[in-house]
């Protein structure tokens, strides 16, 4: 029967397989992306009924206009100190990424992931949230840790899996964890943090706490069942949780069309669940801050969860194991119509008269020096190699709270093997 049908008068069915705008060597054409004017999007009251604000799931909340001025009702009106912190943390994150990427290329570790172009989607929310709020990040939110003041040297220790690594060399580089900073342990399995964040938020509500949860995933991961389970639980229990979808257009080599972007926006997922949804210019740190602040206020006053789509662009490869020139046009990043978040904030601050090119250059130098010092310090604890930085028995610890007999036996075996494999 394959290929044949008794109903020969009907046209044959055809399967649609999405195809991105451009492939390597093609001219880049982003003309289908509608970039509305900044400041034109209405800002509903934090108590608004989700069904009265559906348009915001298809719009694009923007604050910074083409000249860098902050305009419209979403302008969070940050003070100079806040703007400086935002800019510096983004610059520090970028400098950190640059250096650790090189460290991977130099063989000091196995793996690294940059967030270039997406810095605003971590740093602005981290600033808008309370430091006591719990974050459930995916793997590209290093900006949150930096914003919350996690020591860079601890980050590098983790990346090098060295003897200073608080995670005992067990996790792939960049899969950080800090209970002290309310930063949940990162999983390599995608979107698993989504229902967990809802559960945490539900627990906070059960206990009558005032802390809320925020969670991140990429647009590609919204296809996971965990995402939809979380959205359902989030609205069913009105959980105090902010769902961030970082739509950076690419999931490794699969463009956003494979997660459904040809049909609708990711923010519009909220509508089907009866949740508040916002689609935000993810390269506009002030818009991201304002959206998070709005959603946080909503969650904190028992108005329920919000889905925020951060419309942005992954300016570099998925990871050090990826080569984006093999599947997309290398001009996309420079042609991206929403610009670069650091450049946009810098222009804004220069326009306000609180910043200039000289101070910016000095800051870039300062953050690069800070990162360099952290890597040098961390290297004293060793770089990745042979797993010899941690005592062998640590491999068997923390599987359970207590070591059962079978792990004790296997631990003894590992120690015997060590004496043969590495006698020195």
């Amino acid at each position, binding site marked *: 029967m394959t290929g044949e049908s008794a109903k020969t008068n009907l046209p044959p069915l055809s399967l649609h397989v999405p195809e991105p705008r451009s492939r390597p060597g093609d001219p880049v054409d982003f003309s289908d992306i509608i970039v509305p004017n900044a400041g034109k999007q209405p800002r509903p009251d934090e108590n608004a009924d989700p069904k009265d604000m559906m348009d915001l799931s298809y719009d694009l909340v923007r604050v910074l206009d083409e000249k860098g001025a902050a305009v419209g009702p979403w302008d969070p009106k940050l003070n100079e100190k806040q703007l400086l912190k935002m800019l510096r943390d983004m610059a520090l994150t970028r400098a950190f990424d640059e250096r650790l990427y090189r460290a991977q290329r130099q063989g000091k570790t196995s793996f690294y992931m940059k967030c270039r172009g997406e810095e605003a989607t971590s740093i602005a929310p981290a600033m808008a949230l309370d430091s006591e709020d*719990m974050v*459930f990040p995916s793997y590209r939110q290093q900006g949150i840790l930096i914003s919350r003041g996690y020591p860079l040297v601890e980050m590098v220790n983790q990346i090098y899996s060295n003897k200073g690594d*608080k*995670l*005992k060399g*067990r*996790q792939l580089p960049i*899969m950080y*964890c*800090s*209970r002290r900073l309310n930063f*949940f*342990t990162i*999983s390599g*399995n995608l979107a*698993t943090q*989504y*229902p*967990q*964040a*809802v*559960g*945490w*938020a*539900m*627990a*906070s*509500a*059960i*206990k009558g706490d005032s802390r809320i*949860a925020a969670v991140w995933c990429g647009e590609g991961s919204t296809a996971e*069942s*965990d995402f939809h*389970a*979380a959205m*359902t*639980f989030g609205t*069913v229990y009105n959980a105090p949780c902010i769902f961030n979808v970082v739509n950076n257009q690419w999931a490794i080599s699969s463009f956003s069309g494979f997660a459904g972007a040809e049909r609708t926006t990711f923010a519009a997922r909220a509508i089907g669940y009866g949740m508040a949804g916002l689609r935000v210019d993810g390269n506009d740190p002030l818009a991201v801050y304002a959206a998070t602040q709005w959603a946080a206020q909503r969650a904190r006053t028992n108005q329920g969860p919000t889905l925020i789509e951060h419309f942005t662009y992954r300016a570099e490869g998925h990871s050090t194991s990826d080569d984006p020139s093999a599947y997309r046009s290398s001009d996309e990043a420079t042609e991206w119509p929403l610009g670069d978040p650091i450049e946009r904030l810098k222009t804004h601050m220069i326009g306000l008269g609180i910043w200039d090119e000289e101070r910016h250059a000095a800051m870039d130098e300062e953050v690069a020096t800070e990162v360099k010092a952290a890597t040098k310090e961390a290297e004293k604890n060793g770089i990745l190699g042979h797993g010899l930085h941690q005592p062998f028995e640590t491999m068997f610890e*923390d*599987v*359970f*709270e207590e070591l*059962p*007999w*079978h792990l004790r036996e296997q631990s003894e075996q590992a120690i015997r093997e060590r004496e043969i494999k590495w006698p020195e």
Partner: protein
Amino acid sequence: MARMNMIQAINSALDNMMERDDNVVMMGEDIGYFGGVFRATAGLQEKYGKTRVFDTPISECGIIGAAVGMGAYGLRPVPEIQFADYIYPGMDQLISEAARLRYRSAGEFTAPITVRSPFGGGIFGGQTHSQSPESMFTHVSGLKTVIPSTPYDAKGLLIASIEDNDPVLFFEPKRIYNGPFDGYYDKPVQPWSKHDAGEVPDDYYRIDLGKANIVREGDDLTVLAYGTMVHVALGVIKEQGIDAEVIDLRTLVPLDIEAIEQSIEKTGRCLIVHEATRTSGFGAELSALVQERCFYHLEAPIERVTGFDTPYPHSLEWAYFPGPVRIGEALDKIMKG
């Protein structure tokens, strides 16, 4: 002391723990107002309020994922998965998340959750209400697997599971909720009220995980079993007049290897019985352990009696079930060996 069936004993354990620890919360499909399809949570929402005992959307991924998040907050969730057969959508949350949190965070985050789920066949549940998936979990590092065989054990083991700081799979053999079914599907089952192990204290008590129970002492051979199959094996042994030692493992991980070794060193023969499918079943692990650790004490090959490697059939349930005939044949083989 009260007489309880296994459901009542589980309910009593949950009640004790809800009362003792404000951080214990329960959630699952139909467990709130209704009290669960098997009534294990009956009356608990009324007693402890609907923010501690509540119904959930039909999403096992969401139930277990939310439980992991609640555990990270500091609660001690006891989610129910209505049938073990339904647990698969939650597998990633169990295997990649609950089981790994302590390890990957070097102890900063843990998942002190107890997933309760009725399992096993013999109730005409067909292939989606009869499975015994325990070996899928025993294969995963970081998970504990507990299976009671009596009301008394069910309560003590469930309390110990809830108090445990690691994630526990607590599989309830639903065929013996009401009485110790011995494998003769065409005969009435004695209710737990007429059985010693149906005597269950109302108050809190615990049975530590990792300790097997020798339910019958004997010298001729050792039977390793858990859940429903403990009673089926006991029935056959009684009928055949064999002086077997029957060990109810109670927890598969962590396993009481000492009890197993001591018994086999004494008897020299070993029969393993479980209802789950044969290939890569927990019996394979038990068989390997006995062979590795007790080989020079063995006087006959180890025998495994299990379900067949097919889906659990509806109409042919009793042809599938590892009942007295299959066990009897294996016993003959071992005793002649």
